[in-house]
């Protein structure tokens, strides 16, 4: 068996050196992978930053238009102003207003806004009622008459009930 000793030793040496080589090889491989990930992340961040800069520049350029547009949207804590606005319009147009409900609802595809649904009834002359509805659609806030109806209630008076929606910013 003594003649096998050099062979055993050479195999052991081969295994030892091979193991050390594998350690170095996979070490280098791991570092290369880390470099690739870091470079990719850096590029993504740089690209995102470049895009963000151009968006920021664009937003600054359209700041005035954005402010104007914001004026048509009800602020989160300003829903009461809509009710007051409706009451003011009703007084101005000479109709009797009765608000039956105000509720907020989510709309599919709206992530930054929600809809304010206002249900109300009004009574007065037909001309006053139509003027009231016309004014509703030209308010300084975005509004839309979703449905409604007028009917004669006697003595040349008309009664109407309407569903109107407004847009509110979402927190």
């Amino acid at each position, binding site marked *: 068996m003594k*003649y*096998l000793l*050099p*062979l055993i030793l*050479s*195999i052991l*040496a*081969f295994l*030892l*050196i*091979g193991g*050390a*080589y594998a350690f*170095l*090889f996979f*070490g*280098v491989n791991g*570092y*290369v992978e*880390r*470099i690739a990930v*870091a*470079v990719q*992340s*850096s590029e993504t*961040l*740089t690209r*995102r*930053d470049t895009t*963000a*800069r151009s*968006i*920021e520049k*664009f*937003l600054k350029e*359209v700041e005035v238009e954005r402010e104007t*547009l*914001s004026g*048509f949207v009800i602020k989160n804590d300003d829903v009461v102003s809509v009710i007051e606005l409706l009451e003011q319009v009703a007084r101005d147009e000479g109709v009797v207003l009765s608000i039956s409900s105000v509720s907020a609802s989510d709309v599919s595809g*709206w*992530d*930054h*806004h929600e809809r304010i649904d206002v249900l109300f009834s009004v009574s007065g002359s037909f001309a006053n009622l*139509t003027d009231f*509805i*016309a004014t*509703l*659609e030209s308010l300084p806030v*975005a*509004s*839309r*008459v*979703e*449905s*409604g*109806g*007028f*009917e*004669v209630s006697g003595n040349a008076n008309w009664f109407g009930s309407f569903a109107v929606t407004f*847009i509110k910013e979402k927190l």
Partner: protein
Amino acid sequence: MVNLLPQQIQRKLARQYYVRLGTVFFLLLAVAIFIGGVLLIPSYFASQNSADSYERYRDALEGAVGLKEREHVSDDIAQLRERVRIMDDYAKSAFTVDFIDALGDKVHTGINVYSISFSRNEGGAEVAIEGEARTRQDLLSFVELLRESAAFTQVTLPVSQLVVDINPSFSIKMNYQKQ
């Protein structure tokens, strides 16, 4: 040439030959891998340094103030885009004033409208009006006027409402298309 060695010695020598051959093979292989490994050591440390420095650069970039400050802009632009879309939709779909004007133009002296109801749909509204006409002819001419108008489509008057000649009540359903 005749091998005079006994068979047993011959086999032993052959075995020793193959053992030596294997020993040399593994030694040469170990030496080759050793040389490769030695050459790999600088790459190992260089890649380690590079990985550390790239990761430090990325971390610094992530922590950059400007980048954090600009995080909100994508939200802002998404909000603006959505707002413009909603406003455009709202502006295009306002119809009530035009609808009442269009209907008012068609109502003539022989027609009394008692009730108007509408519900917004794509491009206009579904409308129902109820009232009373002075004569059947007045009612027919009113319906004809509505049908001739481009603003009103699918004007439907139940035939049963034409039975009465004087003061017939009517209930008309139609679609209003915003012009």
